[in-house]
């Protein structure tokens, strides 16, 4: 099956720093999403981005589908950005089945 790998596995930042999280996937996909899981376990959908670039405030994401990777940029990080970031992909069309990556654990300190 498809492999979804994320890097780095852990990231420690001071408030105000910028960071880039990477997601590599081993096969073509129809859907790619980025999620943030807060310390209480709640998964929040950040971006639906099968290709191209999107921005939402301090966060932006880019997916290069032909090269099978996606990047999540976090600028001017805040302590509330702490948690685990997952990318998830969907193979096939309208399957609604998401395959999650290995995650990047981000800790932002004041």
């Amino acid at each position, binding site marked *: 099956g498809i492999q979804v790998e994320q890097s780095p596995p852990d990231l420690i930042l001071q408030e105000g720093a910028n960071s880039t999280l990477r997601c590599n996937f081993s096969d073509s996909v129809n859907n790619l999403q980025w999620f943030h899981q807060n310390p209480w376990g709640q998964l929040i959908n950040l971006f639906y981005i099968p290709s191209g670039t999107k921005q939402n405030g301090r966060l932006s994401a880019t997916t290069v589908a032909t090269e099978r990777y996606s990047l999540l940029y976090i600028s001017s990080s805040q302590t509330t950005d702490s948690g685990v970031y997952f990318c998830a992909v969907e193979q096939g069309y309208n399957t*609604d089945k998401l395959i999650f990556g290995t995650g990047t654990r981000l800790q932002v300190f004041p």
Partner: protein
Amino acid sequence: DAGVTQSPTHLIKTRGQQVTLRCSPKSGHDTVSWYQQALGQGPQFIFQYYEEEERQRGNFPDRFSGHQFPNYSSELNVNALLLGDSALYLCASSPAGEAETQYFGPGTRLLVL
């Protein structure tokens, strides 16, 4: 709109017991998916229900079963619990064919002793 709700929030069981977890989807959503998230790992797809039928299934044994009711709410049942079933169980709902609008519930933390 309450979003996706799950109950209970926490549960402790012993090996060999059976457990039922419940999920109410977001209003307007008719597809419910269940995921298991072991500690330190990403969520893994268990199965999905649409129109009260299991639409697809991940790589989980038959001890894991489910049900969807006419009001789209869903249950996940796990029989003969093993220590390795300890995990966060997440429910997600979406309109059919719109995984990009999938909303996740807060999860149920299951501990098997």
